């Protein structure tokens, strides 16, 4: 059952409930008031399943266009399947009425009969060296046009064009920006030494970002993607570096002692653990590598800072009570409370982009390491992985719908993704060596 309600902010008040009547061939369709694209937010009940979508083959004229259309169709299909929000159905043979040519119209009855809730189809054409992808999306039960948009780009931008459509479609149906266009940075020992790599949100387009032949660790993009913070042993000891992605200029935090596991705060500062004053404390560091100020003050390890989206609160790992646990500190007042009480070894916190949840890993008595999610107020603890060895380093997708993590469930450490509630756990990419410490960008 799908409930589609108009965005409350739009002023529309009618709530429409679409009931798929299983025992009846007659479907009484309440009319959908689709005045403009973006008004609908499909609220999917827990366990309601995926949106049944028919993705039509894009129409095209000419063999060149036909090839481009095939590529685009495959990109869009892969993107929609990756999102885990759709079951993508093949178009029924009688999808059009009134012949194949112009003037034919969509056969909504046929679409409904195969169970499609949404239809998406497009046309591909070329004009002055650019590719145009015109996409239309219909609500099949209401037979209403939900969205009509043209995407333009060069022939080497097909992926970006297809993903732009996927992003628009998902935003239309969920009311939220998706992760299409985002990147994941991670560490791999593929070459024999740990280097930093990035890939697209779907594991495609792997790129090596460092070639230091040293040990490089814990990469994380700034929220706007212009900078990358990471720890590297190029100087002989673990040092924090902030690299500009545009001109590759690098600022180092030139302090004694370890400098590990940076976390961005508001895109203008990086928090990291430093030990130049003796104990390991968390400090805020400016873009030029200078120390802004010290945040923690406790005996023992303080490490792995992650911030609420507004930058006001910091979750971090501390061994102040003995074994490592996760704490939350008010950055302004310094007031600190313990977040995790379940489990003896809780580390690697990651604050969700929506601000309400924190994912982290627990080293359990069984020897497994599992990923948990907890509300920032300490309620709602939920285990997302179990029974599959060591699952570590959770990091949220920018829309909060997915989590990327490391698992050695099939041998060596590899990158996996799952929904934010732990469903659909699967490999993100195929790559030699081990992969670890993934961090999903907030930009897209």
């Amino acid at each position, binding site marked *: 059952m799908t409930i589609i309600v108009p965005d409350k902010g739009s002023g529309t008040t009618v709530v429409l409930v679409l009931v798929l009547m299983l025992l009846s061939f007659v479907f009484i369709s309440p009319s959908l008031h689709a005045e403009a694209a973006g008004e609908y937010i499909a609220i999917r009940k827990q366990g309601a399943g995926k949106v049944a979508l028919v993705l039509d083959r894009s129409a095209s004229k000419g063999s060149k266009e036909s090839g481009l259309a095939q590529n685009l169709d495959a990109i869009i299909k892969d993107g929609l399947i990756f999102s885990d929000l759709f079951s993508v159905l093949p178009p029924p043979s009688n999808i059009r009425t009134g012949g194949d040519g112009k003037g034919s119209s969509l056969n909504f009855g046929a679409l409904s009969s195969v169970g499609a809730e949404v239809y998406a189809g497009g046309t591909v054409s070329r004009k002055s060296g650019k590719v145009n992808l015109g996409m239309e999306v219909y609500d099949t039960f209401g037979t209403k046009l939900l969205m009509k948009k043209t995407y333009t780009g060069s022939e080497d931008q097909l992926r970006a064009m297809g993903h732009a459509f996927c992003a628009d479609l998902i935003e239309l149906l969920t009311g939220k920006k998706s992760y299409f266009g985002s990147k994941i940075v991670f560490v791999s020992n593929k070459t024999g030494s740990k280097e930093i790599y990035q890939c697209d949100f779907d594991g495609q387009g792997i790129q090596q970002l460092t070639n230091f032949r040293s040990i490089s660790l814990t990469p994380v993009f700034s929220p706007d993607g212009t900078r990358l913070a990471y720890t590297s042993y190029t100087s002989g000891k673990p040092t924090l570096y902030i690299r500009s992605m545009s001109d590759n200029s690098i600022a180092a935090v030139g302090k004694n002692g370890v400098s590990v596991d940076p976390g961005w705060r508001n895109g203008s500062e990086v928090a990291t653990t430093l030990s130049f004053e003796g104990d390991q404390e968390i400090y805020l560091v400016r873009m030029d590598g200078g120390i802004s100020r010290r945040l923690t003050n406790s005996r023992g*390890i303080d490490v792995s800072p992650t911030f609420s989206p507004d930058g006001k609160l910091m979750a971090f790992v501390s061994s102040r009570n003995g074994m490592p646990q996760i704490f939350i500190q008010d950055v302004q007042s310094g007031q600190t409370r313990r977040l995790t009480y379940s489990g003896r070894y809780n580390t690697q916190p990651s604050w969700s982009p929506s601000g309400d949840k924190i994912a982290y890993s627990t*080293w359990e008595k069984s020897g497994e390491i599992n990923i948990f999610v907890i509300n920032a107020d300490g309620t709602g603890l939920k285990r997302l992985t179990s029974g599959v060895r060591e699952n570590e380093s959770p990091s949220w997708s920018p829309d909060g719908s997915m989590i990327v993590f490391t698992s050695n469930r099939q041998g060596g450490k590899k990158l996996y993704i799952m929904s934010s509630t732990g469903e659909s756990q699967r490999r993100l990419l195929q790559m030699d060596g081990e992969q670890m*410490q993934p961090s999903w960008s907030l930009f897209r």
Partner: protein
Amino acid sequence: MRTVKPLLRSLFIPGMLFLGACCCQKDVVVAPVPLPPPPPPPPSVELGDIFFDYDKSELRAEAVEQLQKNFDWMKQNVAGTLIVEGHCDERGTNEYNMALGERRANAAKDYMVNIGADPARMQTVSYGEERPFALGHDEASWAQNRRAHFVGQGK
């Protein structure tokens, strides 16, 4: 006679010296001046690793003994410097272990400085769980990996 005796005596000494010098001229090369016996060489001290309990950076009793030996190495190699590497076993998570490794290296260095080592000749570096010594996945390997490793340079 009274005046002749000192004269003879005074001639005798340079005479003997002359004769002696003549005799010695050949012998200087072949007869070495006997050297005092060399002092016995001090027993050479070897640097050794120290090991830690699980999730701990406190020094065990046998670690303290080894640190004394490592300090002796510094006294013996007065120009030598030490790199103290802190390591962890593979269990637990990498970022936390990076911090734990540093605490182990610091605990070793602090103890040696307290018993007289020159901190300027010692550097610490944490490798977390990045550089295990033993590659097994059992307690025997883990116990060998929870260590502070000492690298001597320029002795």
